[in-house]
Structures are given as C-alpha cells and as structure tokens.
C-alpha cells in the first residue's frame, strides 16, 4: 500500500493557485512559479483577430492589446458573478493557461488547491469548482488568507490581512480551519485606491490626460502612507505635451482611504477573539497581497493599534506568490485519502 502510494505520487503534479482579482499565480511541485495579470481578452472582431493573431490573450499581453480586445477581469469584486458565463469562461481560460505554464508531464495527474478571496468562498464555491474541474484531476478550494497563513506556518494565534485588488480579506488562525466567523472581507482594496487616486488627480489636474491604467501604475510605483522624503513627480501629457506633475499628496490620500475600514475591522476581529489569546494575535499580524507593498503600512497599523496594547505587524516576503505557495504546501501535505473522494470525473 505504502509503495503504491509513493509510486502514484511521482505521477502527480501538485499545484497551488492563487486566483486573484488583479494577479493570479501558480506554484507547482515541479518548481515552477508563474504569475499573470488576471485579464482575459478576446479579439473584438475579425480585424482585431488578425492584428493580435490569437483567439484569446492573457495578462500583460491582453492589456497591451486592450484596444482591439474584449477585456474581461473575471473576479472583478472578488467573486465570479453568478450566471455571467463570460466571466466563468474567463476564469476557465486563466486556470487553463496557468496550468499550462506549470508544464505538467503528459501522463501526470494534477491535484490542485485553489485559493480564492474569502467572500467568493461563501458565495460561489461551486462556480469556481466548475471552472477549475476541467483541468485538474482532484481539486480543493480554500480561502486566500488561509492559504497564506498555512504557507507561512502561522497555524495558531495569528491574523492574516490580505490586501488584494478587489477585496481585503482578514483571517484569524487558531489551530483549526477558520470558520466563517474568523474571516472578514472588506471591499475597499487596491482597486478602490485606484478609483480614489483617479478622482483626486482629475480634480487637481483637469487639463491633463491620463487613464485608469496609468493611475494604477503610479500607485504600484509610488504608494505610501505616513510620511516619506522627497516629491513624487510623474509625467502626464497636457494637450499632447509631456508635463511633470507632483502627485505626492494625492497618492497619500488615496492609499490612506482604505485604512479606516481596515483598522476598524482589525480591532473588531481581535476584540471578538478569546481575551486570553488576544495579545498573542496582536503580536502575530501579517500583511499579505499587493497592498502589503504600500510603504509604511505596517508602521501605520502598529501605531493605530497602539492604544490596544503593543503589537507586531510584519509583511510577507513575497506577496505575489505567498498565496500560491501556501496552496501548494497545503496540496502537498494533504493525505492521499482526502484527495480521492474529491476527484473529478474527466469528460
């Protein structure tokens, strides 16, 4: 029996997938690490099909050709919208593409753990399963912050705050699988910062021409809270001429716009937890997701929570792969007997 199991194991490729609103990543047991931007684009018509030369495009490729594509960001608010088949189709394409990127051997079975925003899990677990099941032999869906926590070995008395694009997910770990109560989702996250920044900039520079994509790039490059030294100057065209603009205040205001809700939810979650363990949790707060790259965020949180006693806030080292690495670890640790009942019937 033991021998049979090891034999089989060689023929299985474990993959961990982080299905995010903005970026999706895959970590596989053969060592592959890949990520794409969660955009899927289909050529708008025959001419654009000629131009782009492919029936479907992904990530940066799709963004580059966005003018000739029907662009779809399937997990816009952290969920697949039920009944919108195009979104489901797009999720399918992303999963298919990610698994191709992991380069499985032709004979290999694929056992996948997919991390999705905590709220998605509640609303449409089935839709996600449907989308993934065609490409994996067996499959488990878990919440994103939980996968991060598992990957970092934070199984007990910790709080993971995963600031993504569509949602910010909070998850308390207490040595068991987190229940619905232990997870909270806030809908203000990266996309919200983009929106705020866009409106602040339009307000300040009514004559300058910029788009959402440029604003997102500004954010990703310069985001900060609290104080930093120096100016933030970017080039934006005015009447076609490139002009330097100072956007420091706007970036700060936009980034800080998500904080009140975040702090309120964090304190609320800690306060609800068993008082005996509250101190431990406060010393074990971990920031993950793209939002953890905002400069000064961990310090800001530490200061904000000061009145509730000392606490320690750290950021994950590799926010892009923290989720998929955790999902992969979960997949590899999962006993074979748990995989079998969840196998999908391949058509």
């Amino acid at each position: 029996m033991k021998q049979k199991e090891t034999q089989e194991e060689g023929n299985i490729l474990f993959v961990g997938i982080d299905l995010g609103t903005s970026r999706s990543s895959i970590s596989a047991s053969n060592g592959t690490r890949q990520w794409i931007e969660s955009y899927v684009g289909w050529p708008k018509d025959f001419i654009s099909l000629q131009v782009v030369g492919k029936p479907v495009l992904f990530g940066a490729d799709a963004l580059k050709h966005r003018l000739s594509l029907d662009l779809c960001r399937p997990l816009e608010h952290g969920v697949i919208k039920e009944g919108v088949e195009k979104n489901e189709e797009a999720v399918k394409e992303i999963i298919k593409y990610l698994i191709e990127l992991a380069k499985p051997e032709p004979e290999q079975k694929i056992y996948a753990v997919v991390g999705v925003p905590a709220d998605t899990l509640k609303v449409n677990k089935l839709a996600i399963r449907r989308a993934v099941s065609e490409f994996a032999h067996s499959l488990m869906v878990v919440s994103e912050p939980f996968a991060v926590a598992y990957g970092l070995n934070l199984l007990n008395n910790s709080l993971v705050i995963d600031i993504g694009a569509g949602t910010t997910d909070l998850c308390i770990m207490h040595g068991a699988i987190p229940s619905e109560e232990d997870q909270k989702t806030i809908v203000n996250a990266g996309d919200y910062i983009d929106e705020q920044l866009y409106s602040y900039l339009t307000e300040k520079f009514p004559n300058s021409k910029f788009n959402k994509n440029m604003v997102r790039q500004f954010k990703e490059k310069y985001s900060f809270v609290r104080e930093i030294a120096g100016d933030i100057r970017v080039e934006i065209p005015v009447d076609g001429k490139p002009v330097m603009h100072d956007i420091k205040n706007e970036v700060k205001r936009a980034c800080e716009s998500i904080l009140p809700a975040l702090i309120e939810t964090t304190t609320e979650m800690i306060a609800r937890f068993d008082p005996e363990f509250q101190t431990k949790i406060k010393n074990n707060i971990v920031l993950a997701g793209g939002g953890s790259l905002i400069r000064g965020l961990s310090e800001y949180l530490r200061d904000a929570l000061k009145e509730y006693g000392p606490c320690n806030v750290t950021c994950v080292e590799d926010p892009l792969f923290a989720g998929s690495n955790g999902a992969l670890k979960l997949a590899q640790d999962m006993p074979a007997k748990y995989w079998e009942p969840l196998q999908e019937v391949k058509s």
Partner: protein
Amino acid sequence: MLPINSKRRELKAREAILRGVYEDNLKIIGGQSAAPDWRIPLFVKKMILFYSVLLLTILGQGSYLDLPLFPERQMAAGIITQEQQPLSPPEADENQITSSDYQEFLGSAPLSRMFGLGVKTIMIDAGHGGDDPGTAGKMGTKEKDITLDIAKKLKERLKRRGSYNIIMTREEDITLPLNKRVELARASKADIFISIHLNYLPSKPINIIETYYFGPSSDVKTLRLAEQENAGSQYGLSDFKDIIEKMGKTLKLQESKELAASIQKNLFINSKKKNNSIHNLGIKRAPFVVLLGVDIPAVLAEVSCLSNRQEEIELSFESHRENIARYIEAGILDYLNKGDTNYEAKRNTGRR
C-alpha cells in the same frame, strides 16, 4: 519559527486543518461521496425516510396528481411531451405532430378559428435588454442585440401582411423585467405571445434550435435554463401558487404547444437547408415565467446558438437574421391559418 518542543502540537493542529479543508470541500460538491470517516447517523437517515414517506402520502392524497396540468391518462396517450418531441420530417403529415384525442375533438383548426375569434394582436418579446445582456458569444455578440433585431424584423414582416396588430415588449435596448413583459402582454390584450431568445451551450460546439411552451419540466438542463431566463422576474415563490392554478387552462397549453411546434418546424427545416449540422431539439415544456404569466398561447423560441462560433459569425449578417425572422413568421402564419384551405393552397403554390 516555532520551538521544537511544540512540534507535536503543531503536527496535530496541521492534521486537523487538513481534514477541515477536505470536509469543507466535500460539502461543496454535495458531500455524500464515500469519505473515510464520513457517516450519516442512522437516526438522521430514519428521519429523512419518515419525512419523505409522509410528504409523498400528503401529496398523493391532495389534488396534486389530479391537477389538469399533468393528467396521467393524457400523458400516457402522448399528448404532452415531457422531455422533447422531435418533429416529423417535412414530408410527414402535419397532424402527426400534434395528434391527440383533444385534437380530434377540435378538428385540425386552432381554437381561435373554431370560435371565429381571429387573431388580431401579436406580441413579440425580444429577450433580455438594457442591463441584462443575456448570453454573449466569444466575440462579444450580445444576445439582447440579436433578439431585438430579429424581433424588429419579424414585426416588419408581419406588419406587411396587413391583418395583424403587432406589439413589441421593447423596441430599444432597455432593461425590462420579466414581470413587466407579462403585464404588457396582458394590458395590450395580445392574442399570441412570442419570446425570442438565443441559446448558449458552453460545453458543446454544436448549433441547436428549440422552442419552449409553458409547462412543468423534469429535465434538469431545461430547469437550469429556465432558472437563467427567469432570473429577472421578481416573482416570489408565493406568486407561483397563483400562477400554477392559472395553468389549469389546458387549452392555453394545447394552443401554445401547437404554436411552438409550428414555429420550431419552420425554423428548423429552413435553417437546416442552410446549415446541415444544425440539431433539432424539438419543442419542450419549461416553466419560464414569461410564458406562464400570460393567458394567451405563448412560446419561447431559442432561435440560434451563440456559443457556436460559426453561428455567431452568421448572426452578424443581416441576411441571416432576416431569414430567422422569416422562418418565425412562417411558423406563426402556419399556426394561425391552419385548416384554412385558401391559405394552404396559396402556400403550396406560392412558396418554395
């Protein structure tokens, strides 16, 4: 990270977590598959058994089975097709499609003719619209646009006949909840109601045509489709009781079925001439809200299949949409003029 002495405790926690993840996922897929330690306690099983028997007894004694909608005897006689009824080939006798005791009673003329009521008003409903795009093809063709265009073309064609008053539920790209459509049909005193939709089969690359009329269905796929099409209805469950009672009007059911058969036949036979790979799924019963809310003969035609790439391309051509409108028109006219010898003669000589 963690001190070594707590290793054991950590291992245990890990085991519990892995198990939790597994059970959670098992729950998502419905859960009854054979899990290692997964058993339903015996008393729960007993309770389920008891309640199902109780439920069956109550239902069996009530009027449920005697409802005129699903008369057992008639079902056996083959009047009402539960699943689907492939249409007879073109050369087959018309009566074969709808032959029944009921039909004998009525003769071959539709009800409207028998009582000299003449159909005056036809209501055309372009599916979806506005915020609700319906399904969409891979190249972005939206169901709402195609259905509206076909509906408009159909309206023009029928108008040219001169003898009918044509009303549309929507003539622009506006959001219109299903219950509004039903209200419109009632308020306008329409005589027949035709709703135009496009199909979408995510998993199969085929092209199909099917036409629905209202009735309970046991087909899971049809129910799912109905669920999708009913999504904007804003009808509560309580309304359904009322509606079901209304369905007692078997006449409406019978008439709707004939209208559906006539449209389906014309749509399919003509489309087949152009595209040999098309599939005929026949006429089906389904609980679509648009169909059941109206008291008049009502059908819902899924005239094409947007998930089929080739078909999506075809649909972008005006001529193809015009053709679909023409086939639906022919189906309506066939139904309305059935038994009219003048029309039959004209039709046989005048058209190919």
